[in-house]
């Protein structure tokens, strides 16, 4: 319990830090980007909306601490202002309409990469020096050295443009009504293949090597020798004895991976014009849409922190050593 509370305190501090960063950035940056934004979009907005945005982004004359208190209050009550590029939709509405796509893309890719990567790592460590162990790691490390977005571009070119097997843009075909029909789900699935595949390709090496290295350490433990002496089936020793005890670092990576899901799919989403939060973040940056940018960054940070906290709770459940401390 104390462990959980300490972690919770840490995540709150981290969240506070990102809010404060968000607060300070538009206020202390040279060149006054916010005024530029207002100059561009003044005529479309109501006076009171301009007033609210001015407060949010710090273009007012009140003392800085007063602005800060106000800002914190706004964030915790979910008042993030209206989006400039998608005027007059509130920022929160824009974000909630898009986070689902990011979760779908990132979640699918993460689960596939983690499951396949860990299984490969288990096999590689179990048959050390075997085919999987000697051939795959160099290949995966090599693939992992390519820039992430470049692989995505390559996949888009090869499978999307040249071969034409998969659609290359957006999350579903234009004009198709989102509904729970087989047609729509199949369409979404087809649009998901290429972006998810590239994420899996790049991240699978990390999972495999991580699992392999921890499992090599567990393989030399006494309880493995004991299990072998008892005459248990090798597959049982591999999965229930060695792999199970080597899982913990992978669980931690999974938590970090969840954070990556929300924030890190940005480049993939941009290449495939996939309508998730990362793609929207870049659009917001290009459209000088500062309220949306801030809202997206806070949402992404909050998601990352929440994911890590959930993994911590899971950790307590999995690792008795944490509980006894």
């Amino acid at each position, binding site marked *: 319990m104390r462990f959980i509370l300490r972690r919770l305190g*840490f995540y709150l*501090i*981290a969240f506070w*830090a*990102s809010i404060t960063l968000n607060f300070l*950035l*538009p206020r202390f*940056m*040279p*060149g006054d*980007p916010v005024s530029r934004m207002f100059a561009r979009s003044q005529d479309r907005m109501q006076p009171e909306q301009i007033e609210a945005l001015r407060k949010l982004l710090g273009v007012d004359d009140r003392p800085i601490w007063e602005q800060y208190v106000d800002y914190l209050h706004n964030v915790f009550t979910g008042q993030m202002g209206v989006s400039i590029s998608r005027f007059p939709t509130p920022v929160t509405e824009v974000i909630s309409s898009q986070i689902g796509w990011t979760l779908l893309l990132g979640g699918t890719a993460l689960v596939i990469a983690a499951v396949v990567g860990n299984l490969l790592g288990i096999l590689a460590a179990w048959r*050390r*020096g075997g085919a999987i*162990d*000697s051939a795959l*790691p160099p290949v995966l*490390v*090599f693939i*992992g*050295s*390519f*820039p*992430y*977005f*470049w692989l995505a*571009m*390559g996949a*888009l*070119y090869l499978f999307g*443009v*040249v071969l034409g097997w998969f659609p290359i843009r957006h999350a579903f075909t234009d004009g198709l009504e989102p509904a729970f029909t087989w047609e729509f789900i199949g369409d979404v699935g087809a649009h998901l293949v290429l972006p998810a595949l590239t994420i899996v390709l790049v991240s699978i*090496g*990390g999972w495999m*090597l*991580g699992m392999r*290295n*921890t499992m090599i350490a567990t393989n030399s433990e006494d309880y493995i020798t004991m299990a072998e002496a008892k005459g248990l089936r090798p597959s049982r020793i591999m999965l229930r004895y060695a792999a199970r005890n080597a899982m913990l*670092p992978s669980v*931690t*990576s999974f938590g*970090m*991976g969840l*954070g*990556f899901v929300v*924030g*890190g799919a*940005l*480049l993939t989403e941009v290449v495939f014009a996939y309508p998730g939060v*990362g793609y929207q*973040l*870049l659009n917001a*940056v*290009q459209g000088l849409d500062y309220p949306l*940018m801030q809202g*997206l*960054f806070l949402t*992404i*940070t909050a998601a*990352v922190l929440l994911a*890590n906290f959930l993994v911590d709770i899971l950790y307590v459940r999995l690792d008795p050593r944490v509980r006894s401390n």
Partner: protein
Amino acid sequence: MTTALLKQPTSTPAVRKPNRSFVHGLLSNKKALTGLAVMVIFIALALLAPVLFPGDPSRITAMASMEPSAEHWLGTTAKGQDVLALTLHGSRSSLFVGLTVGLASTFIGILVGLASAYFGKFIDEALSLVTNVFLLLPGLPLLVILAAFLPPGLGTVILVLVVTGWAGSARVLRSQALSIRSKDFVAAAVVSGERAGRIMFREILPNMASIVMGTLLACVIYGIGAQAGLEFLGLGDVSTVSWGNNLFWAGNEGALLTGSWWVFVPSGVCIALVAFALALINYAVDEVTNPRLRKIKTPQATPVKTERSAAK
């Protein structure tokens, strides 16, 4: 690895000897040699770029979107620029930024790690807290936000990459410094009244040379990749020629959709080759300094490295 070093007398000049065997081990390691060879070629090409392709590489020299030919080995872009010239000139900015970011992040990492380990208690708590917060904040979105608010330019790119990149190296170096901090020779140095700075930089630091080197390589890889990503998103300095900007323009001019694969392949392959070469050197450093990894001839990463790659 530390135990091997510790068998030497602990006065500072003694560090020389293991260093020489370290260099020797590195030069007789196949992975290290391959990696070093690739790096030497790239650095040479980067230095020679103004000689091989004099003048502004982004000037228009030929017809648009030509396939690779004898005249233009890698074809031309949709604007009619020579892709080979762009790629060679691009290596200058990419390698420079990568190296600068790597050195700066590692330097901050060393300072934070050593201070954490040596002073302990409150300072360690505070520094670790800051490090962990930076590790947890989502890197890429933070990059994008910072780049959006700061004025565009090469300095901004470097600053932003260091801000998002130092925390990983600080954590790795801290844990290594902590384990050395608890050794007897450090305690002896403390008792004999050496100054804090001397203990940190002359006693502890030389004993973690190999992990510093590994961290530096990882940071350079990060710097090159992250710069490319940032520039690909159009958030770098669009006026300079670099691998990331080449890819940005390739995407912008629709090289993918028109089938001009020769425009986006070279820069991407270059980034991958450099990253792979640096990774090979990194593995070699591990193998040379960690006897446990040397026995079986398979590439291997230490848990430290996996932690870093997962963190990205």
